Structures are given as C-alpha cells and as structure tokens.
C-alpha cells in the first residue's frame, strides 16, 4: 500500500468535515505532496511519511511535536 493510498484512507474520515477542518471540495483535491494548510492533515501526512520511511514511534512523535509547537 502506498503512502498516497494510506493518506486517502485517512481523508475519508467524516470527522475532518464535521469539525470544519476542511471543506469537501478542498478535501477531494488534496494530494500527499501538496500543502493543505490544515494542521491536522499535515500531522497525518508527517505520521504517514515518517512511518512508511521506517522511522520509530519516538521519532515520529518528536516530529509531530516540532510541527505543532510552531
């Protein structure tokens, strides 16, 4: 399963729209390599990229922290 496939499966979650993180129109056009400007979606991307690239849970958590501490 590719990173893109995993990413797409996360985007299917209704919570993203329910909690107004993004609109459906924008959601449909999203791609893994493109900036979404939505923090939750970027968090998901980081987690997927780092995990698939073989990074440990600790490293991924640190990277998520770094991103959200900005």
């Amino acid at each position, binding site marked *: 399963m590719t990173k893109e496939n995993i990413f797409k*499966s*996360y985007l299917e*979650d209704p*919570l993203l729209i329910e909690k107004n*993180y993004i609109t459906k129109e924008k959601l449909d056009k999203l791609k893994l390599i493109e900036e979404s400007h939505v*923090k939750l979606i970027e968090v998901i991307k980081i*987690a*997927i990229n780092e995990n698939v690239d073989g990074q440990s849970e600790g490293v*991924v*958590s640190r990277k998520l922290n770094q991103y959200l501490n900005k």
Partner: protein
Amino acid sequence: MIIEKIELENFMCYAGKNSMVFTEGINVIIGDNGYGKSKLYDAFYWVMYDQVYISEKKEFQNTKMVKSKIISDKAKWKPKDGKLSASASITFHNLETDKKYILERKYTVNVKDGVIVESNDSEFTVMQKELSYLSAKMVSDEEEKRKIVARILPPHIKDYLWFQGEQVESIIDFNKQDSLTQAINVLSSITRYDELNDIAAAAAKSANSEYDREVKRLSKDTGRSNELEKEKGYLEVKITDLQTDEKEVNENLSRAEAKCDELLGKQADATKVKELQEKIKGVYNLLAVWNDTLKEEQISFHRKMFRNKWVLKGTENLQEEYAKRFSAYEQKKLVLIAEREAKNNRENETAEKLQTRLPFNVPEPNYVQWMLDKQRCLVCDREAKINSVEWKKIKELIDRPEKKPKSSDDEPLTLQNFTDDLKWLYTNGLSLSSRIADIDDEIKETLAKRNSINAKVRSANKDLESIEQDIQKLLADTSLNIESAGHILDEYSIQNKYAKEYSEQRIKLSQQIEYAKSNLKNVKDQLKELVTGEIPKWLEDKKNILNDFETIAGTTRERVFNNLIAQLEKEANSHYESMTSGNKSTRGQIKLRKLPNGYFMPEIIDNNGVPLLGSNTSNLILVKLAAIMAIISAKNNDGVVNLYTLITDAPTSVFGEDYTIGFCKTVSKVYKQSIIMSKEFYKNQTLRNELLTNSEIRIGKVYTITPSIPENERSNRNNLSTKIEALN
C-alpha cells in the same frame, strides 16, 4: 522474485547431479507416493533454513540432527576416501531489478578407509548478480546473507507460502481465535494502520500531559487543583482497569461463544449420529421382517408345488398324449362292439337262412323229433335208421342254430374292464390341464413377489451399509464418540450460561467506563475553571489536533480493516468457488465472523446466513486455503507488494481429485509463481492433460519424477536415484 532454477547433487534420493528450471505460473512436479516429491520440497527448505521436514515426527530438523542422511545412499555406497558432499542451490531472479541471487547449501563428510566421518554443520553460500548477465559475486557478510534470505522470503510470511500438505490445517487454526487475524496482520497492510494508530495514541497522550501540566501551572487554587489532579489520576487508573476488565470479559465471551458454537456443531453431529443409529435400528427391524417374509415365501413356494399342483408344469403333452390314447382306446372299443354286433347279426341271419332252407313241406320241429324217435321220414315215408345218413339229415334240421340271446352284447370284451378308471383318469386329466394354464401366472406372481422381497432385502442391506459408512465418517470427521454425545448438551448449557453472564458483564462494564469518562471530563472541566490567565492557543490546538488525530487513526484503522474483511470475504469466496467448481456437493459460502474480542473467524454459511455445521475436513481446509489466498490476492491488488513463490508439497492430497484443477486455476491466478508437488496428476492422465491444456491455468514447467527403485523394493537403497523428466 521468482525461482529460476534448483540444482541438486547427491541430495537424499536425488543421486548425482539433477536440476529443474521454473518459470512464472504454476510449476508442477508429478510423482506418486515415495517418488521424491517431499525430498524436493526439503531441498528448497534446506537451502533457505538449514532444515528438512521429518514427516514421522511432523517437525523440521536441522542438519545437525539429520547429518549424513542428507547425502544420497547411492553416493554413500562404497565411498572413496576423501570428501563426499550433498548440495542444493536455488537461483532467485528479481524480474523488476534483474538482480539474481544464487543460494547454495552444502553438507560434506570425510571418508577414511571407507568409513564416513560425519560433520555437524552445512555450509551456506550466497552469490549475487547485480544484473542477470553480470558475473556472480559471493556475499561474505553473514548479516547481509541473512538480510538477503529475509528479502527473498520474509520469515513472518514463510509459513503461509512454503508448506507441506499436512501443515495446511495448522496455517489457520480454527481452535485459535487470533489465527485468521494474525494471518491478515502478516499478509496485509493493516499493520501499517496499527502502527499509525499507536503513533497517534502516543502523540495524543503526550499532548494531553503537556496540556494538563499547563492547566495545573496556571491554577488559581493549587490545593483544589491537587485534589482534582488526584481524582483525575484515580479516574484514569479506574478507566484503564475497567477497560482491561472489559477486554478480559470480551475474551471470555468470545471463548464461551466459540465453545458454544463448537458444542452446537458437535451437538448437531451427535444428534445426527443418534438419528443415524435409530435409522439403522429401523432398517435392521425392517430387514428382519423382510427376511422372515422371504423365508415364509420360500417354504410356501415348495408347498405350492403340490398344493397348487405346480408339479404338473410341463406335463401338458402327457395329458394330450393320454387323451389321444384314451380316444384311440375308446375308438377301438366301439369298433370291437360294432364288429361283435355285426357277427351276431350275421349268425342270426345264417340261422334265419337255415330256417328258410327247410322245404315248405317239412313239419314242425316236434314232428321232426318224432321222426327221429320213430327213425322214419314222414315226408317220403321211408325208413331212417338211427345214425344213418338219412337220420343225421333229419337231425340236422332240428339242430340248426337258434338266435343268440341279446344279453351277449353286454359281455366284456376283455377279462379286465378299465373303462371307468380310464375315463376317470381322462376326466381328471382334463380338469388338471385347464389348471396348468393358470400355473404359469401363479408361478410368475409368486416369483415376482419373491424378487420384490429380495430387492427390498438388498436395498435394506445397502441402506444399512450406507448408514454405517455415514456414522463412521461422521465419527471420524468430528472425532466424536457415541458416549461423549450425551455430555455435550450439559456442557452446552453451562457454556451458554457463561456467555450470557459475560455479555451482561460487558454491558455493565461499558456503562461503568462511560460513567468514569464522564466524571473524568467533569474533573478536567473543573481543573480548567481554576485556570487564571489564558492557556496558549497553540497548546490548545495541539491537544485538540492530536486527540482528533488519535480518533481519526482509530476509526480509519477500523474502517480499513472492515473494508479489508469485506474484500477478503469476497475474494475468499471467489477462490473457494473456483477451487470447488469440480465438486458439486460443496455447499455454502465463506463468512468471516467477527468475535466479541475483535478477532475474525472463517465459517461456512448457507444462503440465509446460517452457519453450516459439520462441514467435512476437505471443505474446512479449502476455506483456510481460500482465506490465505484472499489475503494474498487482496494484498496483490494494492500493487506494491512483492509477490513470493508458493511452494507446497501435496497440498491437494487432503481434499481429493475433484478439487485439483480448481486449486491449480486459483493458485495460478493468485501467485505470480508457484511450485506444487502433486501425485494427483500421476495416475490420472485426464487430469494431467487438463493441467497442461486448460487455458484458465497459467502453466509453468511440468516435470515427472521417477525413482530407480520402487518404494516397496527399497531394502537396499544403494542404487537409488531419481529421474527427472520435463513434460513441457
């Protein structure tokens, strides 16, 4: 990565140098029992894992244990002093990168004065070609060698791809609830979602702690905050404990439900056995009745020979003959009577004629007598002395015959008169001959009746045999015995009671968890209310985002897994249908049932979704194979999975020839390459032709293997070798 070639030298029954090349598709090695199929499988396994399968012990053993048994007997017979080796090498080809790996394992012994001195270990070498046309370079780093082997066939999936026929059952163990889930985890990408789930949970936990610390730091009432923190900690521990209990209860509930299902299955089987036994009893009774009837009919048949005059059968000619003779006799008798009457008539006529011969003037007889007495003729008035011519002439007149009395007609013609007896016999014969005509129908009717009873006896015997076979099969399939059947119901009641109790406990625990969570939320709100100033927005956002990430990660994993299960179910059914297409008796479809503890178990259901109990072993094995193939083919659809070669020895031996072609079709669809050792194509030429020509089977190379000495003549194996012949 496909296997391109295997080369063997003095490996077990493969004496001397042997090789086989393989292509993509299904490669089949055909040989009867004892022809060397398992040894070929051993060769593959030995190269990769330094182990061979000991079927008597049902376990793999290292070279250390097997030692020189690896070397062919032919090579070991009268060995020359020096070194003697057995080796096997496999060439793997990565078609995408064009890399080749040649893995070779060799076991060497020393021979001194004709005596073999065994060594403990084998040597393992790995050669690597960066491009197939370049020269191979030896890999000397042990860690690198290990990595290459793991890349060629990852250890966690090898059990699903390389297995002996007899191991199929243990791949997915229906007695272990996590068996299928484990296979899904190993063979699918769901573990990626599990890992992401863990990452999200850890990140959310860390963010919550950070947030809580900030809340505490900004509290206007430290004492109250500490109290609330304590309560919060207590509630968190309580929730964790309750969740642990809930998990345990779910496990127990799953076990109890599984046990109930198992007992229900057994109960159905036990009931079936009981029913069959009752049926057998009924058939025995019926058989006894039919046998008695048949015996009576037999006795009655003999009686009827005389009572119903069946013995007369075939005497029709006798009666006709008798009638003819009797008629002739009667005829003759009438002729005789007529003749006698004619004679009488003639005599009377003569007498009358004689009477009329007397001259008209002859006196009445009294005068004639008087003339005789007087010895004088009164007609001519001459003397007629006694006994003179004249006197005799006169006497003649008086002696002329008189008419015979009528009564002489009634005198019998012979001394014995059988007329009445013969007539009685004739009349009797006549009535009997009319009876003979009916005998045929009666005999036919009786024989038909006897045949019908005989047929019923035969049919009852056949029923008996069939029911007994059913019982034996059922007992063998279910490993049930008649005595244990009685306990099943009691045990089922107990397990069912447990299941109900666990179910109630689960509801109660769920409510307690909800309640504790609600309390925790209250405590957190109270803590937040104590905050003076403002919690940084980035921290608030971070906490919310990571908590939402945790939620999304959980639901996404659940959704992906459920989709995967639905896809697996679909694929498993497609494979199951394809594999069982040759057997019309196969019923039902595969359902992956979710257990309370979250695990999935495959089961066979009917069209109404009702589980089919008491499925036979072949079906269950096919369900397992279909489930594994579904996981592999579903993963294949992801498009990034390296496909590994399926190597299996006699996988179809457990489920009969009807499934063989279906199995081959499915395997050739699911696996890029497979190497199957099979005996089904050995004797069945039709099956073999179909394998080679069926367009639905993506066929690779097909070989037959034949030993130089048949298995039953191998008291001396010194000349044993194996001939390999390519069929395509």
